[in-house]
């Protein structure tokens, strides 16, 4: 069907309708699988690996009293009987074949990640099209990191624009500059994460240096000076929830044209997902101090009164 772009395939782990927090208007978000960073606070752990992954929520399982379907279907023997009469998954033996997910009646087992074509994504996105027209909304690429599947992301953006869909992309910026610039050419809004300016801390908490991220932001700013950019920082307790850390970020972006800034308060919504993937969440116990967000916002406002701050 359609143009060559429409046939390009990639892996998404979710298409979420009716989002209002990621770009203008009422939007649909395509979540890309795979990310080059490993932020310790990540709230979408299912996005990190580039391939489909098995997830398991024992609370949904009906117990072996009612059902043994997964046990029967798993040939590598990755599923065992746990003390609570439910499956325990031996992740070392699991081949991620996902056969058990289809067998499970209760959706206690499911897969994160499905191969999808650009045409399929757009078909799902356009089902909500009537809401975009009124709200100025559209499609947002998120993740994971869309630029981890650059060909798919760029084809999707180009095709979306051909369909006159408003586009936004959320990126961590750690990608090939050329990819980012060609994606940006098809964007109405770029959402760009800056987490920590101190490079050694950045390495410590995300696993990569921020050099490429910072230079990419400058590059894309130069290449597409008209493109509105929303720079975002997740405020993580004990890591960057201090004035100094945030000041460094806003100082970096303050002079850039068409840039807005937003701080996102740390939340623990992602914690259960670590469990589903058989992982543990390192910083699950921390929380932001009361009033910290307000203090930081005031500080940013004082320091750079001209920098538009998203509330």
């Amino acid at each position, binding site marked *: 069907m359609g143009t060559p772009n429409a046939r390009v395939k990639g892996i998404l782990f979710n298409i979420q309708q*009716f989002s209002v927090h990621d770009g203008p208007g009422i939007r649909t978000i395509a979540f890309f699988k795979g990310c080059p960073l490993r932020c310790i606070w990540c709230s979408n752990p299912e996005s990190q690996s580039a391939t489909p992954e098995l997830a398991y929520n024992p609370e949904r399982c009906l117990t072996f009293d*009612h059902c043994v379907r997964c046990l029967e279907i798993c040939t590598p023997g990755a599923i065992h009987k746990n003390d609570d009469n439910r499956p325990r998954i031996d992740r070392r033996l699991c081949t991620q074949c996902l056969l058990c997910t289809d067998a499970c009646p*209760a959706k206690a087992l499911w897969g994160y990640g499905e191969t999808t074509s650009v045409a399929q994504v757009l078909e799902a996105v356009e089902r*909500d099209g009537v809401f975009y027209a009124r709200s100025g909304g559209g499609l947002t690429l998120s993740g994971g990191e869309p630029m981890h599947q650059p060909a798919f992301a760029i084809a999707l953006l180009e095709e979306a624009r051909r369909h006159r869909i408003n586009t936004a992309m959320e990126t961590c910026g750690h990608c090939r500059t050329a990819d980012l610039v060609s994606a940006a050419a098809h964007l109405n809004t770029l959402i760009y994460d800056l987490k920590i300016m101190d490079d050694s801390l950045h390495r410590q908490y995300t696993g990569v240096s921020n050099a490429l991220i910072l230079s990419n932001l400058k590059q894309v700013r130069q290449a597409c000076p008209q493109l509105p950019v929303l720079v975002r920082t997740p405020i993580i307790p004990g890591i960057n929830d201090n004035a100094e850390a945030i000041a460094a970020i806003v100082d970096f972006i303050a002079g850039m044209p068409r840039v807005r800034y937003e701080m996102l308060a740390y939340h623990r919504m992602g914690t259960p997902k670590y469990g589903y993937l058989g992982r543990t969440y390192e910083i699950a116990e921390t929380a932001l101090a009361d009033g910290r967000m307000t203090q930081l916002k005031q500080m940013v406002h004082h320091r750079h009164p001209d920098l538009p701050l998203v509330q």
Partner: protein
Amino acid sequence: MEPQTIDRCEVLSPQERRIQEDQLGRENAYLASRKRVSAILNSFQAMRPKIDIERALYFTRSMRETEGQPLILRWAKAMRRIAENITVYIDPHQLLAGRAGCPGRYGILYPELDGDFLGLAIEQLPKRVESPFNITDEDARLLIEEVAPYWKGKTFHEDLAVALPEETLRLTYHPENVLLSRYIVNETASFRSSLQWVHDFEKVVKRGFASIRDEARQRLEELDPFSPVNNMEKRPFLEAIIIDCEAIITWAHRHAELAAQMAAAESDPQRKAELEHIAEICRRVPEHPARNFQEAMQSQWFAQMWSRIEQKTGTVISNGRMDQYLYPFYKQDLDAGLIDEDQATEMLECMWVAMAQFIDLYISPNGSDFNEGYAHWEAVTIGGQTKDGRDATNDLTYLFLRSKQQFPLNYPDLCARIHARAPERYLWEVAETIKEGSGFPKLLNDEEIIPLHLAKGATFEEIYDYSGSGCAEVRMPNRDTYTSGCAYINFAAALEMALYNGRMKLYGDERIGLETGDPREFKTFDEFWNAYLTQQTNFLKHAFIQQHIIIRLRHRHFAFPLGSALHDLCMEHCLDLHTPQIPGGIDLGYFECIGYGTVIDSLSAIKRLVFEEKKLTMAQLIQAMEANFDGYEDVRHFLMNVPCYGNNTPYADEIGKAIDRAAVQFAHKYSRELGVHLDLRYVPFTSHVPFGRVVSATPNGRKAWSPLSDGSSASHGADNNGPTAILLSNFNTKNYDYRERAARLLNIKLSPKTVAGEEGTAKLVSFLRTFCDLKLWHIQFNIINRETLLAAQKDPEKYRGLIVRIAGYSAYFVDLSPELQDDLIRRTEHGTI
């Protein structure tokens, strides 16, 4: 589990915030600034309603004396008897005079409707779970000894029960006890005298009843004295109009006398002046045209209260386009410096608190099941378009919205019309009001309603001027002429009969529907679909048979002199509004589909799991359902995880469209024979709960006897793609090529966080615009945290003021039965905007 408290919610709606303040012992700032209405409010809030029997008593006594005369004349004479004898009241602090019964929250009785239930019901009323009532022993005795016996054998309900053919009866009532409904093809004509209705209130305030009476006198003089029709039909009609107009004037004058007496005895000079003013106004209206805002309000109030006394209109009489017909008075007083915004708001609030005290009492168990939480919907319509298709919003429109934003009452039911060119400010204020969280206003969509009614025969001028009426209906007060309640059809029961060869688990071996075969022998989904369709069509057949009888019987039991006096066509033809056919009228009836989502999801599950993926056999499915899924949790979960209605998925929506299509095609073919429009509607009131009580486990994993899906909303928990998906599923399942559709009621529940702040309002506005673009009929919102509902269920005392949206109306959460409370909690909350 942690205890549920309101504090745990991230963002609270303004309503939730007020409740929290109240719990902390802080004064409600708004109420503190409104001394008069707060005082009235405190006098009755949280009081258990009482029954006032005067109306029933005087009505019955008069009817006993007038037997043999034309019905409309008898009705008018009964109204005269009431006007002369009923106790009149003026409440302390009130600016509006007139109530239909004793002080406090009260209900009145209509024994002409349910005289055959009365004896039984009176004993049970104080005890029942849904909406209990108090009655004194002396009054109960009068009812049981004097009122009820007169009506025995004379009610419409009894007449209808004997007229129903056997097969129809079997689907309607218990064959052995016709007082018990079957909730399959349920008739609704016998628990009210009329469908929802709106009077031409503009006529009331602008002309007054003296002018209508004089018109009738004039017409009487012009009658051909030798014509049998003039003598036997027109004369009694016109005489009845004259009597009824004079009755309401008499009633108003009695209030004038009372006000004057109270003024004479009043020591507080301010109140004394108010009472003198009330006396003057009651001498003037509704007899004559109103001259200012307060007179217009009083005139309208008398007319609507009189209407309540005269007739049990379904969902109580609606108020029409108040921001339109009151505007000239408001503007004139404002310009003349006689009134300011605050005073006008106070007048409106005086009306709301008076309305809130009247309870629409249902005697029959059937009626109260349908209308839980003391339901009434005196819909006040605002916004929309003028008769010539221009935007109609004005300053008063905004005053209504503001009065609704902060006033902690579930009355009136505010109904905002929206259209493609509705001003941004209007939608913005509508959105802000919705965000308050108490369910107001509901929205009606001109872009669906206007073209649809043009196709049904209205003129532009008439339909541009429509009013919201009842929970989701509309009326053209001088063109609409249909008042017969119609069938509520349990589509989920049709499905059950397709599964059990014409039988239902609740009724054992009794064959109620048609024998469509044992589904375990079906080879294809089409075979099952055809069996289902046969049952559905059979239900429709009997619904239409019922309606045929109802249309022809009702006018022998009910007359409506007031409604007729205010209707151009009734006056022109000298015909009572309940006459089966009035020349020039448009008869807009509708039958109800109950359990739409339940049936779609069930058919989707059967299609997918039994016939496509073959994960289950029909025998396994039936076995699991017969066990109510006990020991078959795995089967149940498979069933629940198929594509469901409400997610904007073509798989389920196509099934929904086919169900809808079969029904509208049936209506297209057969309503013409009945001489009326009998169209498909999806508006459940609270009836999806009792209708669910007769349906055993269904193939969507729903457990036996639990509520069905409500209106055109998704099954509980089945919609997980957000509210855009529900709107689109509604759009997808409508058959726009047919005109045989009526209202679809759509409930959306959002968490307050979703619409927080200015940005949230902006997004809600664009959501409403899209609703308008999609040509959906109706939408309403609950913006509330789930935690709040759970907390209120646990600790009702602390949440007495919590208002929630149910069907077409808002009610106090704590007034609802536990079943309906659970149902509300289960409605999916969309927190993802």
